[in-house]
């Protein structure tokens, strides 16, 4: 196994057995590797335990959860908790709000961030350094600092409790611009110069030549933005003031602190409904997720 990633090395004579030598210098004794595997498996089980408990608990009745709060398998599995969310509490509208906000936010970021990224990567213009400095400066400003005056701005624009208020502040962001700029910088200038000489306008070059080459960066940006938007909490909590605009995290948090605070089964089912779509998306696209972390360092 180690030999797959190990570059060829010259065997070194020092301590150790001949068997160690042939398996490469950075060898790992079978026991050592077994111990590593065991520890990793234990760590993995501990990591995933809360998810297992969440899913199993969501099929239990309140009576069972109260009687045995640390059990795993449900005695008599029930869909009552899910029925209550889907029918009585109409979780569909929160789901729809979250999805709408996430999809529009993703679309906006793909368009706006790649446009700025293109200008910064492939055009020479007055004020370029200022623009780049602004983008980098924005990366440093934490959202907790801006949410109060942002709320004042949004109220003055009459956007409290509206989709506009939920979406507009996140329609473009500096990390996205930075990601697109980095990726576009690697596209050969000759390709773009050739198109300019052929008389193609900048927008045509951007949309017909550069964007089609940016698939992986756009995928990463789309996924990271979707993830951010789906899980975003503080701002929707502040700006969505009626149930008709609640997103899933806001709805869950209000139910979990209100009169249902000790209705374990219901809340676990709610958590499953919020977490499952994003985990499935992650499992399907995990390569892009991890690529995104590695290239931007954000979560």
């Amino acid at each position, binding site marked *: *196994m180690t030999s797959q990633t190990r570059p060829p090395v010259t065997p*070194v004579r*020092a*301590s150790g057995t001949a068997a160690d030598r042939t398996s490469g210098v950075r060898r790992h004794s079978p026991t050592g590797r077994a111990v590593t595997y065991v*520890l*990793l498996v234990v760590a993995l089980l501990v*990591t995933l335990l*809360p998810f297992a*408990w*969440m899913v199993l608990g969501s099929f239990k009745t309140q009576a069972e959860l109260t009687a045995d*709060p*640390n059990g795993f398998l449900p005695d008599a599995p029930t869909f009552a908790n899910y029925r209550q969310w889907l029918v009585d509490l109409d979780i569909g509208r929160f789901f729809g709000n979250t999805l709408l906000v996430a999809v529009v936010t993703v679309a906006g970021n793909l368009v706006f*961030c790649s*446009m*700025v990224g*293109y*200008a910064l990567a492939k*055009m*020479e*213009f*007055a004020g370029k350094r200022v*623009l780049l400095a*602004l983008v980098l400066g924005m990366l*440093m400003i*934490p959202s*907790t*600092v*801006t*949410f*109060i*005056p*942002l709320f*004042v*701005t949004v109220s*003055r624009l009459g956007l409290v409790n509206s989709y506009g208020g939920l979406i507009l*502040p996140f329609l*473009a962001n500096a990390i996205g611009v930075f990601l697109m700029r980095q990726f576009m910088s690697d596209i050969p200038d000759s390709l773009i110069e050739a198109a300019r000489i052929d008389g193609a306008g*900048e*927008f045509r070059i951007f949309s017909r030549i550069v964007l089609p080459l940016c698939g992986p960066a756009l995928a990463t940006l789309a996924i990271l933005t979707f*993830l951010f938007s*789906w*899980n975003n*909490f*503080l701002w929707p909590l502040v700006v969505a003031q009626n149930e008709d605009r609640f997103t899933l*995290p806001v709805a*869950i*948090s209000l139910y*979990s*602190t209100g009169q249902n605070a000790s209705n374990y089964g219901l*809340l*676990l089912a*709610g*958590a499953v409904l*919020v*977490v499952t779509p994003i*985990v499935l998306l992650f499992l399907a696209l995990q390569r892009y*997720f991890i690529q995104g*972390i*590695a290239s931007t*360092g954000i979560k």
Partner: protein
Amino acid sequence: MATTTKAPHAVPADHLTVSRRRRRHQTFVAWGFAAPFMALFVVFLVVPVVSSLAMSFTDFRSSDVQTPLAVSFVGLEQYTALFADPLFRRSLLNTALYVVLGIPLTMAVALTLAIALNNGIGRFRTVFRVGFYTPVVTSIVAISVVWRFILTDDGLLNAALGLVGINGPDWLNDTTTALPALIVMSVWRNMGTLMIIFLAGLQNVPREVLEAGEVDGAGAWRRLVSITLPTLRPTLLLGSVLLSVGFLQFFEEAYVMTGGGPLNSTLSISYFIFNQFSFGRYGYAAAASYVLFLAIALLSLLQFRVLRTQD
């Protein structure tokens, strides 16, 4: 003859005006490309950041939203009141504890996982990586609901501790254990991000040096401390800065799991800001957010100084 002597001069001159005109055109088009972003940026970031600074020197309240110029200027009064406020001081302490305990712990766990995965784990490598990363993608609010139940007096964690003979406390209802319990959950939620970053960084540790160290008789621990960690410095720095920006703003975990209690033992700066905002004391809350902003900037600076690669 005239044409041949004229041509060499005419071409550069022509070229110059063309390129100048082209540059002006490029500037126009480039800012066109940036226009939607800039508009959003000004309305939803520049204006709020500047006005929140201005707001922090006034007695702005929620009733002043429609008439923001009618507020009175109070100078540094909000800031002095802030530092005299025992609640705010408590939130500073809680946030500091959360950062000082949570960040090294998360980094240690993530580094251990990354090193384990990097050492001869070929089979199931992806399974491990995906598994350890999964908590990162989950909604903090939703997962906090789950942890709230795991951490109850007779919950899963205490049941597990009971197996090894430890009588666990009622984690979230005890002033001494509530914050540590939130820290444990944050380690669980955030270790995946750092693990990925550290795994990428470990690829830069020169194999030959590790091998040479091994030949010279350096044990695994010695090689980790003397070779791997120094090479990993920039990666550790990146990881700690990223983490501290998030940890300094912790809010959601406490909001869902403890409501800031018991007895304000999990009240974070962000939570304090949120509460003041809910009470309508916008100026006071804005002043607190600038203190937080400053803390984030200072901590980042400190980390750069401490962990900066020493060339």
